């Protein structure tokens, strides 16, 4: 793919999109910027946290392109409500708050073809309300459903022609799980490396999960 704009050009209104990244590391900012410019709306966004003010992710939600946000944090850091907090209070964006590990596991389940699983996390809390609870071997678990997406956007450090990905440090976070759970997975990377550059036992995201790669050398 020549550009981020090309890579996301076919994302339609109403699409469900996963976006990797944690505390800024691994955020696909070039793809997100292109998505803001593209203007697709009524999106369901699956991303661990709301982006701090000024980030590409915050621009996407602030622009009203997101109808629903599934995340483990939607809290701004400022003393005033963020645009997202205002949209949420006004009922213009729906929030589904999920414990971060359950969030990761729901995505992992989606990628692995499972429909749902029982986890002990959130049992006895407000976040378990309305969810099916069930005892196994004397402990209570809640049912959580898998998450899948039409598109996954992620950032990695480098890719080969087969789509194998390597990440820098903590860039990895939700990348491998989301790559597997997205019907179309789009990676932005800093570099294309030769096929054979990755040690076979050290391919963090195998190319089988990756559909499009955008090279943005200034990322590195």
């Amino acid at each position: 793919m020549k550009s981020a704009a090309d890579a996301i050009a076919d994302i339609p209104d109403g699409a469900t999109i996963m976006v990797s990244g944690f505390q800024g590391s691994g955020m696909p900012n070039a793809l997100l910027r292109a998505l803001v410019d593209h203007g697709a709306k009524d999106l369901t966004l699956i991303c661990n946290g709301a982006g701090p003010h000024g980030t590409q992710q915050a621009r996407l939600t602030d622009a009203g392109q997101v109808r629903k946000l599934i995340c483990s944090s939607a809290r701004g850091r400022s003393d005033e409500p963020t645009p997202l907090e205002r949209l949420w209070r006004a009922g213009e964006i729906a929030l589904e708050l999920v414990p971060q590990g359950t969030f990761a596991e729901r995505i992992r389940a989606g990628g692995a073809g499972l429909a749902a699983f029982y986890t002990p996390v959130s049992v006895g809390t407000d976040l378990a309300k309305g969810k099916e609870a069930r005892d196994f071997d004397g402990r209570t678990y809640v049912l959580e459903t898998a998450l899948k997406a039409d598109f996954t956007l992620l950032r990695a450090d480098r890719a080969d022609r087969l789509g194998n990905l390597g990440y820098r440090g903590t860039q990895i976070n939700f990348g491998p799980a989301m790559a597997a759970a997205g019907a179309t997975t789009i990676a932005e990377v800093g570099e294309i490396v030769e096929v054979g550059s990755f040690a076979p036992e050290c391919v963090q995201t195998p190319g089988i999960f990756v559909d499009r790669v955008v090279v943005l050398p200034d990322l590195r």
Partner: protein
Amino acid sequence: MQPLSRTQITWRAAQDIADGSYVNLGIGLPVLVANHLPADREIILHSENGIVGIGPAASDDQADPDLVDAGGQRVTLRPGAALVDSAAAFGMIVGGNIDITLLGAFQVASNGDFANWDSMHPWKGPLVGGAMDLAAGAREVRVIMQHTTKEGEPRLVTQCSYPLTAPGVVKRIYTDLAIVDVTAEGFIAREIVAGLTPEALSEKTGAPIVVASNCATLSAPDL
């Protein structure tokens, strides 16, 4: 009566972490425990964004935006560290491989319930992060917090008024005034700062609290 400083609380909590433990430190006060781990113990710090084996905080010239802990702080790796994805990192937590998690809290109840995620703020967006996963999954949950709110309200209570993070999981609480165990019989003070009477402690505690017969003096070096 001399309450412990925030730094001293974290120092004291660090002394109770056994050699060989895998530990996850929550955002805020708990993460400062890393600064006081006894040098003769091998304690491996875990971060839910995918690090097993956090090293010292990064200096300015080491700081790498792609090497951050769960709080977003720039960190280093210790030799032998592993970097994994978030699903694997939380698998370690919920799968019972974290020996101890130290977390902050608004309140802890005498049955081990605690609340640390929903501040019931009038307009702020919700935030849960990894708190519930750590609370439900770690082998032992310990809390670090001030004994009372800024307004002097007890944080150790009979029943949490804030929404729970998990029911019945807290085993020990480190405060500026005391180390308190959560037992089947309720709160038991194991250490109290010098000059604080059992009566004064009870006044600052929102639930019955027993002072252990072998209760020691809670102290820490000047830090």
